[in-house]
């Protein structure tokens, strides 16, 4: 099993640390050539979605990742990753547009609105959740399974091979969300 981690900008090393802890082989994707390597899944990390989205397009990674998502490659997007996967972004530009969701960016406001909480996640129990200038899902299509909500807002969801969280499991020591993703492979 081998997981690619999109490493254009943001907290990608934190995902590597989680995968290393789970003994899962992984590598960084910084340009087109890296994406041609064999992989069983892809992680799109947190960071600034505007930056990662722009670099995806300019480094010619957008179409290949979009095609891979449509062809069933398991992809896990956290925070910025959730935004990049969404079909529609309120007051923003769609990037990959492969997940039938509408996402609000900076839904909790500025850094003073960042918070930590605990909530149940899709049958694996209560997990710690770290929200940093986080988005959430305002609408989800029928094919989308809602995995977690906080204060009535959707903060984790799955659509077949695609997993998205508004929070950062990689910033906690809890490996269960990554294990959940690996179980989708």
């Amino acid at each position: 099993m081998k997981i690619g981690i999109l490493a254009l900008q943001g907290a990608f090393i934190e995902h590597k640390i989680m995968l290393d802890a789970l003994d899962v082989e992984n590598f960084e994707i910084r340009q087109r050539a890296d994406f041609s390597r064999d992989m069983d899944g892809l992680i799109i990390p947190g960071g600034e979605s505007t930056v990662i989205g722009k670099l995806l397009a300019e480094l010619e990674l957008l179409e290949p990742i979009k095609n891979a998502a449509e062809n069933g490659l398991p992809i896990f997007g956290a925070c910025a990753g959730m935004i990049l996967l969404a079909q529609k972004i309120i007051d923003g530009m769609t990037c990959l547009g492969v997940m039938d969701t509408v996402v609000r960016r900076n839904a909790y406001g500025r850094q003073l609105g960042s918070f930590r909480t605990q909530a149940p996640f899709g049958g694996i129990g209560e997990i710690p959740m770290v929200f940093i200038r986080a988005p959430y899902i305002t609408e989800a299509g029928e094919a989308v399974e809602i995995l977690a909500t906080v204060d009535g807002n959707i903060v984790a969801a799955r659509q077949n091979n695609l997993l998205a969280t508004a929070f950062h499991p990689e910033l906690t020591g809890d490996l269960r969300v990554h294990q959940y993703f690996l179980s989708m492979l």
Partner: protein
Amino acid sequence: MEQDRYELNKNLAQMLKGGVIMDVTTPDQAKIAEDAGACAVMALERIPADIRAAGGVSRMSNPGMIKEIQAVVSIPVMAKCRIGHFVEAQVLEAIEIDYIDESEVLSPADDVYHIDKTRFQVPFVCGAKDLGEALRRISEGAAMIRTKGEPGTGDIIQAVRHMRKIMGEIRALTAKRADELYEAAKQLAAPSELVQFVAKNGRLPVVNFAAGGVATPADAALMMQVGAEGVFVGSGIFKTGDPAKRAAAIVKAVTNFTDAKLIAELSENLGEAMVGINEQEINLLMAERGK
């Protein structure tokens, strides 16, 4: 400040890693920076090169101007307060700034005490020339560190010197026996617990960016290769012929900082770089403000 808040503030800096934070003085510039791929902007009235040229006392920016910038971009907005000026910091917190830079670029307000950053909910980034200075700022509550470099010069030498010093001192600590760390803490004039963390983990407990004098894609990649986790670019963008193009090139160079072929392409036809001044030509060393 409760521990959770400090962790969340360190976490925001983690999200900025691998990115470029750009100095902007107007909403238009902020928009150009965001479109060029900045992961955050630093809102200030004058860029460091102009502060240096103008001389006189340099203070926190007009909060009205900062709010205008907050209104036009969706990325984090940072702003500077003077070293030790905790009321300027309170003002910036009141307008919900995402990060405060307690900065040597402005005229220091206190020549003894830095701000007690643990009393704030919003995060702080502080400059450092060496490991001891970085750890002292962290012990005061800084959630992110950057090299001081020499702002507004377009000369990379000081940023390189500071980053090499910090990284070298970190490597030296990792080779020490546990019983040698108390003396190391004394020499560094830094708290023992932080020295022990660095010795054990081989890194600072917070994210560490490069700042001061970055003017080209190659400068930015150089800083990444000597250990920076991201880059601040101040005067190096809006003091040049084609700010949008140069900014975008620096962003890409930071992502692919070891790909010399790409950096060569990015360095082509960027228009005029900032003229800059060499360290020997400077009368005022801002990096010497605050220790």
